[in-house]
């Protein structure tokens, strides 16, 4: 075999491996898509070619499943969490990025560390406190704990974006007599806007997919979509058709959001750990 032939063979082998990887990656997702448009009986036959039905998407919104209420809870909790976290995180990120603060490194390390603390550790005291305050099974309670996971992400991510904005424009505006707050509002915020949007979407996805807090702190009124998945158990076992329809409602909006920020997705996850 000549060198060129070997090279071509090697290239073909790589493409095959990549295709196998894609197949493995897409199968669990495709499975949900297929099952969501089938009746429960058809799922058991494993037949790929059946007349698709939209019935499952109607049923999940009816009683006793009432997925609409969960959808509303998830949307509201994630939106309010992001709306609270992003402004607070932006302020802090700007300060960390542009000034020297006493204990800055300590603060940043602690903020970074809190993001990795297992949710199951944090949730126990919150459960006790919420029970005493009557905040169990409320959306307000859920928003409060979601801030705990979203905040460190948001601060680090936005700090990364502001670090990347050249300081010259700000200094020029200051020389022209603009106050610091005006500079933040008129110079920094417009330039950081794409970064803030990315961080916001990122936090929205985290809050939307959050599972353990909602599992322990809600049981009826404030139940979110991922917890709602547990509803679809019939007397004969799992109702796979309805589970899949609910699965699509959970994952498709997040796919759209994730693809919208795909360039920064990884950067956000590692928060500047890998440069």
């Amino acid at each position, binding site marked *: 075999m000549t060198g060129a032939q070997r090279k071509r063979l090697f290239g073909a082998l790589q493409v095959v491996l990549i295709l196998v990887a894609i197949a493995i990656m897409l199968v669990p997702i495709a499975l949900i898509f297929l099952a969501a448009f089938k009746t429960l009986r058809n799922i058991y036959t*494993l037949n790929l070619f059946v007349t698709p039905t939209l019935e499952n998407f109607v049923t999940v919104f009816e009683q006793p499943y009432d997925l609409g209420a969960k959808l509303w809870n998830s949307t509201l909790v994630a939106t309010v969490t992001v709306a609270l976290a992003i402004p607070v995180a932006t302020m*802090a990120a700007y300060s960390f990025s542009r000034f020297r603060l006493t204990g800055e490194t300590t603060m940043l390390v602690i903020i970074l560390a809190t993001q990795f603390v297992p949710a199951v550790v944090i949730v126990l005291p919150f459960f006790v406190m919420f029970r005493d305050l009557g905040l169990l099974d409320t959306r307000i309670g859920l928003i409060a704990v979601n801030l*705990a996971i979203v905040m460190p992400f948001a601060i680090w991510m936005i700090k990364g974006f502001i670090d990347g904005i050249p300081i010259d424009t700000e200094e020029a505006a200051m020389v022209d007599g603009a106050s610091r707050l005006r500079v933040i509002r008129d110079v920094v915020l417009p330039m950081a806007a794409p970064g803030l949007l990315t961080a916001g979407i990122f936090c929205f996805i985290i809050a939307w997919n959050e599972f353990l807090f909602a*599992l322990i702190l809600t049981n009826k009124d404030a139940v979110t979509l991922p917890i709602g998945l547990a509803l679809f158990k019939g007397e004969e076992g799992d109702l796979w058709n309805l589970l899949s329809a609910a699965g699509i409602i959970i994952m498709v909006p997040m796919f759209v959001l994730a693809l919208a920020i795909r360039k920064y997705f990884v950067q956000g996850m590692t928060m500047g750990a890998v440069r």
Partner: protein
Amino acid sequence: MRDNTLKYLLVAPAVVVVLATAIWPLWESLRLSATNGRLSRPGSMQQYMEPLWDQYTWAFRYEPAFWNSVQVTAIYTVTTVALTTGLALGLALLLAPGGKFRSGVQTLLILPFAMSPALIGVSFRFMFNPEFGLFDAFFGTLFPWLADVSWLADPVLAFAVCVKADVWGWIPFLTLVLIGGLASVPQDTIEAAQVDGASGWRVFKDITLPQLVPVLAVVIILKSIFSLKAFDQIFMLTNGGPGDATQTLSHNIYFAGMKYGQIGYAAAVAWLMVIPMIALIFAHAKFVFRTD
């Protein structure tokens, strides 16, 4: 306003939020862990202090379920970290050259990561269903001895399915991180080595891999942290079963605290889990701050 005041005012709200939503509950957990509080007692928990040590040694002396979950978590962490890192590195090397096809695949890689872990658990339970699961239909036909295996009813196989679900969910993200790392390996060094006649494997072993060490370290540390606290997928996939074959530490804490109401004991175990994590977090922070 002077910058000197302003800079602390800007940070203050974030610090308050982090203190209230992360530091306080950690501290409160530590306090709870020194009590034998139970959820079943109405109103505020009746708490009487025991020697702190008792609560912690209790786990080791009297709770086989705790020991079991420590072992499950340890094996789970080692296998998932090794498999995800290894496979992600392979995939990253395949995808790193770029081009239209490979960039498109990189974009696709985002999808599993935007998927709720709970939903990944559901999807894998679906796939490994012995009656109509895809895995059964596909491999059962190819390899008859794999037909009608009740994956989730067998302790070892159920554990394997949990590992598969975890690896499936994490490979895409780690691959993207490693592709980022590969991009920073100087291309001219590689080309120079190739001109000198070095084989592909030599180039990888002697040039690429050493350059990749810091990124690999971050990947391994991050994945270890997430493996140690694994919960969502396993909860939806096996709920710790069959028996307690897939009960991780997080799941054990959840059971002790929420199902049996032993919140003081649960907090103690939770803190036992925090200790190895603190070491990992410090290692991670070291890498994050290494260039600053």
